[in-house]
């Protein structure tokens, strides 16, 4: 999965902390959805009538974003030295010669 094997490096945040943070965070998420059913918010766009529209939109939007980016990565990702071509003759002479082939 990972070219440099970062997977073997330990997490910098102690696991019990991150567990506590994530639990608090999800509790806040649930609270926000509960409020959505209690409080009557103003509606400007027809989609906003959907219960917990913003929560759904945020979650699904990001899920789509991340998945699509993985697809994009397959199309556009190149090795780090991809652009290290020999420079055009006469242009910026004297550097990049190490790569010149």
């Amino acid at each position, binding site marked *: *999965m*990972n*070219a*440099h094997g*970062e*997977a073997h*490096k*330990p*997490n*910098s*945040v102690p696991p019990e902390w991150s567990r506590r943070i*994530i639990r608090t*965070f999800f509790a*806040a*998420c649930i609270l*926000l*959805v509960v*409020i*959505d059913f209690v*409080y009557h*918010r*103003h509606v*400007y*766009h*027809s*989609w*906003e009538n959907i219960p*917990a*529209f*913003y*929560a*759904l*939109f*945020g*979650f*699904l*939007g*990001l*899920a789509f*974003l*991340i998945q*699509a*980016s*993985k697809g*994009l*990565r397959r*199309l*556009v*990702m*190149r*090795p*780090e030295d*991809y*652009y290290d*071509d020999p*420079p*055009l003759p006469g242009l*910026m002479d004297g*550097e*990049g010669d190490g790569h010149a082939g």
Partner: protein
Amino acid sequence: MLGSIPPFLIFFIGALLIPFVRGLPRLALLLAIPLLGGANVWAIQEGFQVQYDLLGYTLTPMRADRLSLLFGYLFHLAALIAITYSLHLKREDSDTVQHVSGLIYAGSALGAVFAGDFITLFVFWELLAISSVFLIWTRRTPEALRAGMRYLIVHVVSGVTLLAGAMVWVHQTGDPTFGFIGLEGLAGWLIFLALGVKAAFPLVHSWLIDAYPEGTATGTVFLSAFTTKVAVYALARGYPGTEVLIYIGAFMACFPIFYAVIENDLRRTLGYSMINQIGFMVCGVGVGTALAVNGAVAHAFNDVLFKGLLFMSMGAVLHMTGRTKASDLGGLYKSMPITTTLCIIGAASISAFPLFNGFVSKSMVMSALLDEGHMWIWPVMLFASAGVVEHAGIKIPFFAFFAHDSGIRTKEPPRNMLVAMGIGAFLCILIGIRPGLLYDLLPFPVDYHPYDATHVLTQLQLLFFAIGAVVVFQLWKIYPAEIPSVNVDADWVYRRAAPRVVRAVGGAVTAVDTAFREAFVGALRRILRGAFRAHGPKGILARSWPAGSMVLWVSVMLTAFLFLQFL
């Protein structure tokens, strides 16, 4: 006296003086320039202008109205922050070059926003490019040299396009005043294109993500503040209500967030994030109502603050560790807790959390979209808002300061960097809590209240669940890993395709050319050889004949004549 000096002059004069002082006097002078400039611009009255006639045209090198004054205040703040951030530079960092070019750059931005005519605008437009490229070149890596050269070419082309458009405009209207332009006729399109390059419109955006990550730690903070914001200012003045800007803005807000997810260099990620934020501004200008244009310029103001803060925090990481790649970083919160906190404030601001400044300006553009019935653009921009959370809100702070422990142990950056970041963070929160301070400066009267219960609730839902998606992806370990790599973008055209085409065409031309030359030289040689055979030292026509044989031939010829006479 104050209130009547063109703001750029203070910076240009300061830049001239800087090389002659060192040490404490230089620090004092550097800080005095934006402070004195700030006092001057604060005293400038609306409607103040300087005009003179040149070759039958009335030029307005200095014009102040609410729109230009807002950007004037903003650029002084940005200059103060960026200068504070770069006070620690030493001789080995080419400090004089960086300080001087930073000042000329900031001064040119001020000159451009106060320019009342196209000629003045063009001059400062080109100065922006020429002065800022040194902030990239002083990094002194081969990548920075090349990226800087590409940056310069793109911007000079933008300037030339602006000049061409301005010439057509002046020819057609006879008036060089820079006001509303609109997309009618050749002039309108040429100027639009010139502004579009500087504003990083899609397909002409790649100079930004190419050059900004290659700048020096301090130089990129300058870069992030001025160039694109001058373009947003110029669009707001020349093209408000131009419908195509809505779609360009929406596209700009969306496509970079996909790249930002997979980009490994965190300063390049911020570059993509910058295009995304400019998308909101461009969209606002495109909608063109008072609320939308207010939102666009307010967002430009806030973007300089929070994007500057984020670039400063990544600059601090670069300064202390020499790295900005996500795959090399992680766990820095242990050794840089203050930088971490300030970076998180920037991240919360750009994500538009309530109580931070992004919230009070982005929402104006969103509301304006709904007011004007752009029911299909609104969800697109909502998606883009959620996308910001992913790369700028989470990715930047998380991969640099948390995530896997990279083992790097360092210190907080120099105190001046912390102070600069502190000023940025303070302003982000101040404007978030007291939006009225910013609203009072906007070009149109503001009747907008960002803090109503519905708006706060919906924004929190959007942001928390967007973060939730990232958390879930991380927990399930299906979040895209940080991989050392580059991602192909529009700059592929001139960094990869064009050189290949040039090389291929050049190769073909060389081959044909060589064949031609060889054929020609061959023919020439054959002719020469023939001539040599006839006329060379041993050639039949150049041989030296003995006198006896000549006498023989003369007598033969005379005999022949004699013979012919008798016939």
